[in-house]
């Protein structure tokens, strides 16, 4: 098992004919993802990478039974694309695009909630269930099938953590980058619930960073529900100064809110094994699992 995606996932790529969309669609196919269709308005009837391209998501779903979508369209059109996918009945939507205006995202999430669609991202690397399906831009080969569920707000930091796990011979059930924006779709708690109910997942890694309070909320959830699986945590940006945006739109300490040390303290209070040095991530998780 794994969460949200597996070998039965039928993926639609919105923006498949664009440069990024085409490149990563090819990579996803090579990994083994079942890409069934693309959508580019005005390109309906064409083919890309051997799959049909449609003008609308509704038509793509009707003809190919796509049950997940990944969005590689420009920022100004991304919220609209996600809404289109939800309206067509797609239950899982992954938005890779960065720099989507935050007020667009609030409207988009509100629309998606009404339709019951799940959103991962924006500004994220995507989701991967090693050996089964990859939706996003992650380097597939660093992953390894196994018992760890991993969720993060970052891209390369996630790869670093995954790499260390794999090198230490610890595989992963599903790895998710939920994105570095201030208003992400699914958040830590959503993934924690899914990992809790997934029999293949034996432990969870939460990789957080400064800004917002999602890590604190996740820690509170773990504490209050007596979360049944071991959780390992890491927080990036402990040395970041307040008021400065550290690359990610969401990674900013505002006043006394969003500080790294508060997140670490909340994690420790919830019984999470906090990894202080990123360089020892894989090692600490390996030792923790043996106990």
């Amino acid at each position, binding site marked *: 098992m794994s969460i949200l995606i597996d070998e039965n996932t039928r993926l639609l790529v919105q923006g498949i004919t664009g440069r990024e969309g085409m490149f990563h669609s090819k990579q996803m196919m090579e990994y083994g993802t079942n890409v069934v269709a693309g959508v580019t308005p005005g390109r309906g009837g064409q083919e890309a990478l051997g799959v049909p391209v449609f003008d609308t998501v509704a038509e793509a779903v009707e003809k190919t039974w796509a049950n997940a979508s990944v969005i590689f369209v420009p920022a100004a059109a991304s919220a609209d694309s996600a809404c289109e996918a939800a309206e067509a009945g797609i239950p899982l939507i992954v938005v890779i695009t960065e720099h989507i205006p935050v007020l667009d995202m609030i409207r988009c999430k509100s629309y998606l909630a009404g339709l019951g669609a799940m959103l991962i991202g924006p500004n994220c690397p995507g989701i991967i269930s090693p050996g089964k399906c990859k939706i996003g831009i992650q380097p597939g080969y660093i992953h390894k099938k196994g018992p760890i569920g991993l969720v993060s707000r970052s891209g390369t930091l996630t790869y670093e953590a995954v790499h260390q796990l794999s090198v230490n011979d610890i595989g992963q059930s599903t790895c998710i980058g939920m994105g570095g924006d201030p208003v992400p779709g699914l958040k830590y708690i959503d993934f924690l619930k899914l990992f809790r109910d997934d029999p293949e997942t034996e432990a969870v890694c939460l990789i957080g960073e400064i800004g917002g309070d999602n890590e604190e909320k996740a820690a509170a959830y773990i504490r209050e529900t007596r979360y049944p699986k071991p959780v390992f945590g890491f927080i990036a940006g402990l040395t970041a100064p307040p008021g400065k945006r*550290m690359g990610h739109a969401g990674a900013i300490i505002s006043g006394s809110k969003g500080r790294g040390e508060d997140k670490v303290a909340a994690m420790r209070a919830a019984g999470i094994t906090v990894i202080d040095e990123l360089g020892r991530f894989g090692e600490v998780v390996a030792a923790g699992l043996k106990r």
Partner: protein
Amino acid sequence: MNIHEYQAKELLRAYDVPVPEGKVADTVEGAVAAAKELPGPVWVVKAQIHAGGRGKGGGVKVCRDAQEVKTAAEAILGMQLVTRQTGPAGQKVKKIRVEQGTDIERELYLAVVLDRGAERLTVVASPDGGVDIEDVAEKYPERIFIRRLDGSHHIWPFQARQLLFGCGLQQRQIGRGAALIANLVRLCVEKDATQVEINPLVVDRQGTILALDAKMNFDESALNRHPDIAALDDPDERDPLERMAAEIGLNYVRLGGYVGTMVNGAGLAMATMDAIKQAGAEPANFLDAGGGANVEMIRKGFELMLSDPGVRGILINIFGGIVRCDMVAEGVIQAAKSLGLKLPLVIRMEGTNAEAARKLLDASGLNLFGASSMAEAARRIAELTKEARQ
């Protein structure tokens, strides 16, 4: 992106939010001329910098005649204004706003802000304006009124009424107050503002409601659809190196230490500066060369890092995924050679083609240290720069 008070007030006026009459000036003569064109008998001269707390720092002066306006303008223009938000170096004042004085009856607080936790635009009001709102929130939380908009950024009239009654406004002022709140919300939504704060919002002795100060922040991701807002950016308010980085499309934040860092990806870049600190050294900067770093970006990043005179050593940390490490190594070698790099350089590369990258670096003849893990890289650069430690 933040803007100046005078710019914010022009925007407010365009959205039918009343503000005192005023003009902006960048010379003493201009300030005196502006005061002459404005109704008196009292004028206020206000320094235009982005940081708050200007009054306490001496950046706001009340004047009773043209001579006082002249004296105030002379004192404020060109001063290095230090406030609780500027840091000890302060910010140089290049512009001032000269404004008609207001006969204040009451000072309120009103803001429309993005509440990140709630994921909603939120209107905040308080009868206690003109002071630090965070202090009010701490001491008298019952005097802060908060109403959240719905997911389509709509405010209902009842929400505005609740806020205004909470502020103690009288029945006859509610209509105008509600229109003012609706206009602020419209400004936020139409211009992608994530914060419009009016502190204080005043009621004058004639009963008019006026925005006496205004602070605005706009979503940088939305600036390309608002060229009018993008044009309000004041590059002088930013660190020159951060400005340069923005122009070439790199995320750079100066931190003040002595170990320059360049990393691909924001999360890993933050974790790298943390690792440097844990190893006992001080990071000079945060620099995210992007998840898809290429040779050109690496070269520009190098130049940028070295423009900071405080840098005594460099740590490069690349996790190759889609990006190949050997390609990044080429970029590093080219940049280090063309810039004649003399500083200690530690490189840690992992992921796609990392082995090929190590061979290239070994063969380059450059004086560099290749680290095989993050921990080793941080420890090594800390050793190599220990003379810079105080």
